[in-house]
């Protein structure tokens, strides 16, 4: 197992190298010039050229790439073109809100969706099943921003129960921290609840027709034990897979929610940096996202071995 994990970690290096080349090349091929953006509307061509030189953008692209990679290998993500701040500091500032939102969303989604999916499978064809599946269809169909606006209108504007927007770090108070995350979490979790509930229902349904489930029932075991210990455990592999994919999608998918709720997270940083053509920041964030994706896949693969002893690496 440890050899497998080590192999997978080593394999991360070429993956990250390919991502680094791709993200660097794509940014340079995208129209737009950070120097022009920095210079402002009334800048002359000479002003823009001077800024380009200062940022090192007048050098050949290959040279720029090797300078960047050199710094990267020394752990230096560079300095933002715009903010005169180290990219590492910018990213660190933004990690907290995104991790908090993603964690709360995935926890809430799993806590709600897995029981719903199990119950829907157990009561297949009943009104509960139809309600859960109807909710799933709705969750897939309604855009995230619409859900966000509706929740804001009801719970923040009309009822004044929760704040409209913003983020409060945990160190500034637990109440404010949770209060600011409730609506974004509910908004973002709708689609994940729909996704996980559907997959859970399908997986459990498949397992429920197996002989060992019939045997368990024949032994007189209560439904709760049969469902939780026999059915759900054996249906867990696809569920864990979809949760893993969900977490990966979540990291990239928080952009809209962060915008609607004005949460200063990594999603917003990415969008702002792309629009401003802040190359060092975009490169750093994309690399970070890629690393998270790769590591999540590894965690999911390792989790399989605990859920299903037949899986060995």
């Amino acid at each position, binding site marked *: 197992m440890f050899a497998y994990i080590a192999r997978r970690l080593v394999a991360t290096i070429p993956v990250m190298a390919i991502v680094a080349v791709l993200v660097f090349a794509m940014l340079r091929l995208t*129209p*737009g010039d950070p120097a022009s953006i920095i210079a*402002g509307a*009334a800048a002359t061509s000479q002003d823009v050229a001077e800024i380009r030189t200062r940022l090192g953008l007048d050098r050949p692209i290959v040279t720029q790439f090797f300078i960047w990679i050199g710094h990267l290998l020394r752990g230096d993500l560079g300095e933002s073109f715009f903010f005169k701040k180290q990219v590492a500091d910018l990213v660190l500032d933004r990690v907290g809100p995104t991790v908090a939102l993603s964690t709360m969303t995935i926890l809430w989604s799993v806590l709600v969706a897995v029981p719903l999916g199990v119950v829907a499978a157990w009561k297949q064809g009943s009104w509960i099943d139809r309600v859960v599946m109807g909710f799933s269809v709705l969750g897939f169909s309604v855009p995230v921003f619409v859900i966000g*606006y509706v929740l804001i209108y009801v719970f923040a504007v009309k009822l004044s*129960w929760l704040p409209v927007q*913003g983020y409060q770090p945990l160190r500034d*108070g637990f*109440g404010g921290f949770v209060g600011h995350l409730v609506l974004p979490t509910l908004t973002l979790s709708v689609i994940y609840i729909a996704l996980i509930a559907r997959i859970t229902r399908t997986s459990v349904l498949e397992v429920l027709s197996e002989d060992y489930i019939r045997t368990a029932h024949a032994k007189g075991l209560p439904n709760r034990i049969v469902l939780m210990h026999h059915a759900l455990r054996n249906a867990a592999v696809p569920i864990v897979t979809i949760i893993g994919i969900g977490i990966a999608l979540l990291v990239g998918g928080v952009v809209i929610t962060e915008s609607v709720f004005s949460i*200063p997270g990594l999603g917003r940083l990415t969008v702002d940096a792309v629009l401003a053509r802040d190359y060092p920041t975009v490169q750093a964030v994309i690399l970070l996202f890629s690393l998270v994706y790769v590591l999540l896949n590894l965690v999911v693969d390792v989790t399989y071995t605990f859920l299903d002893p037949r899986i060995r690496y």
Partner: protein
Amino acid sequence: MFLSRISRFFLLTVVAMASLTVCAVEAETLHVVMHSDLKIVDPIWTTAYITRNHGYMIYDTLFATDANGKVQPQMVDKYTVSPDGLVYTLTLRDGLLWHDGTPVTSEDCVASIKRWGAKDALGQKMMSFVKDFTVVDPKTFRINLNSPTGLVLLGLGKPSSAAPFMMPKRVADTSPNEQISDFTGSGPFVFKKDEWKPGDKAVYVKFDKYKPRSEPPSGMAGGKVVKVDRVEWRVVADQQTAINALIAGEIDYIEQPAHDLLPLVKSDPNLKLADINPLGNQYAFRYNSTVKPFDNPKVKQALLYAFNQKDFLEATIGNPEYYKTCLEMFICGTPLGSTKGMDGLLTSNFAKAKQLLQEAGYDGTPIVLMHSTDLQVLTNLAPVAKSLMERAGFKVDMQDMDWQTLVARRSKKDPPSQGGWSAFLTSWVSADVLNPVSTAFLNSSCDKALFGWPCDAEIERLRDQFARETDPAKQKAIAEAVQVAWTKDPTHVFLGQWYQPAAVRKNINGFVVAPVTVFWNITKSTP
């Protein structure tokens, strides 16, 4: 056990609500949503309006333009001009301090003028008249000129980007092409660098040792008396969320709410609109004068006949309450505003436009019209231009792109078929186009001009003449002559004025009517 969990949940909820309530009672903090995130904090290095606004928070200027368009002393106590107009002697007010507590000196001011003069277009023009500076004592210095000019006061009192902000000498000695990293100013607010989180918020606190002028505030001039302890610029990228936050009382002030959301503000009993910039903004169509067919003045003139301002303003702003057609290049209602030479222009006279195109021998060369799709106040301009141009006989290739791509592409001098461009539309704050020298699109110095690179010796001669003139009546005559010369070989087309009210909560008062959003004199009472 279950009940205990429920009790714990409610307890946590109550704690959460209580902590939110505590946040809501910060009566002396003004929560503001500005038009953009503050990314660059050097107001000389960039002309971005958000950075200019930041500049007015923490820096002060020697002179400032009042609500009547007149330049008034600001940091300056008194000034004299020698009879030959060649020496300006400026004496600073008593008690001016930098945020670090050290006094503002003449040397600081001279270094600041030099840095601004090396970067800003009007500053460069002014500096072309400056022979040298003489520091007389810590509070007095002289500006010695080569020849008389009206640009000294006009430049040093300039009300918009890039304003000549005064900085300590150690900061002003930074190359104008390098960003400063020391944000010590002498303005009414102190920038809290440690609390600045790009993409989230910028924080300013009242500078207790700031010594305001005794006069009431007027435009950018007068007493800058700060009446709140703290101003937080919050970044709320989504306009609907910003309005919701305003309604909920989390935000006090939105600088530029979208026009289509203004009815929501009007209908809420706790909110109001504040028209703090009566000069507004001006739309403009910019030609690339170096490429076909806009290298031919007659083709450019054809657009002066093909366009009309109302179509553009209707398509973008919509509500006539917030726009005005105005055939005065230097803004209606200002000292230099005039309709001279504008008879018959901007009336969508397509017959005349077609006639001019025929005389010019227009061969159907496609106009590559850059269409920015992501800025609401600009998005609908290009489709209107395309429609009017096609009705006049132009062939138009409108290309969609985000604003930042447009900004990068407009600096390219390549032919349109090789990644260049023919035309685009934008908007200026009216305060930036009040005279022939500050109107950047009028610069017709060929390669040295702004993107579009018009080349017109007559306009340049008149702009120089304006720069040398000190008599307001003669300045007006020259401005009119510039406008007439412009009709013969246009550098751009001005497409009407539009206004942007701020959305604020009703307990916020004391707004200063000025071309720049400023936060002195504003009060926040308990709702």
